[in-house]
């Protein structure tokens, strides 16, 4: 039962990253332009890397593959995104998004600590909480 609930939690955590990663990778030039508006260097390469982190990280969380590493990466990604894109707190929506990104990072830290549960690739490959 618990492993099913954790799987549901992983699905909920993964959805936004899979969608956002897919969206970036299918519109590299649009994403590069969006990134440039935040002063990010690297253009299309940065857009592709960000998209790959989101898509592959989201898929890893979804299936529970190398879950602790993926959770750490996406936690760091969420915090970095908050610091880059959501600092204009005079707009309340930006402050709210900043806080939501931090909360998502917190959720990933929970996952990084406890692992993905039994319904995961990691569990099938012998990962358990005991040998974490």
């Amino acid at each position, binding site marked *: 039962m618990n492993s099913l609930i954790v799987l549901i939690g992983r699905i909920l*955590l993964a959805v936004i*990253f899979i969608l956002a990663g897919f969206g970036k990778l299918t519109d590299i030039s649009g994403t590069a332009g969006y990134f440039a508006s935040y002063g990010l260097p690297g253009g299309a390469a940065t857009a592709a890397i960000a998209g790959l982190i989101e898509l592959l990280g989201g898929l890893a969380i979804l299936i529970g593959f190398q879950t602790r590493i993926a959770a750490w990466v996406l936690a760091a990604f969420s915090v970095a995104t908050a610091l880059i894109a959501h600092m204009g707190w005079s707009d309340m929506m930006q402050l709210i998004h900043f806080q*939501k990104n931090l909360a998502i990072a917190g959720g990933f830290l*929970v*996952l990084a600590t406890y692992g993905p549960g039994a319904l995961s690739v990691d569990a099938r490959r012998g990962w358990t909480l005991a040998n974490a």
Partner: protein
Amino acid sequence: MPLASASLLLIARVLLAAMFLASGYSALSNIQATADYFGGLGLGPSVPLAWAVGLFELAAGILLVVGFQTRAVAAVLALFSLAATFLGHYGQGGDDPTAAFMHSQALLKDIAVAGGLIALAVHGAGRLAVDGGRE
């Protein structure tokens, strides 16, 4: 549980709680504005609802941080987040593409937050908590 894991869970709880603490405080510090916002969404009675939501968010945020009844609080907060985000962000923004995008992103983020809260609800707060790692 190693101290490093327990510390990580404390940090995770603070990160998860911050948005609810801020939102609850903000709702309570201007009840009329909160009530007007709820009224605009067609929710009511708006003033009692503003008080209830503000107090709930503030209390739940504090309980998450201190780690008291963490599993129950996280489960309730996950359901609250899902309900609140569908009421507040689903299909909102109208014809303004920027606003609509912001709302759709907020919706997806709240869903992710609920996912993190669900993981916390299953496992508990760890030993740096009032619950003290009790199951």
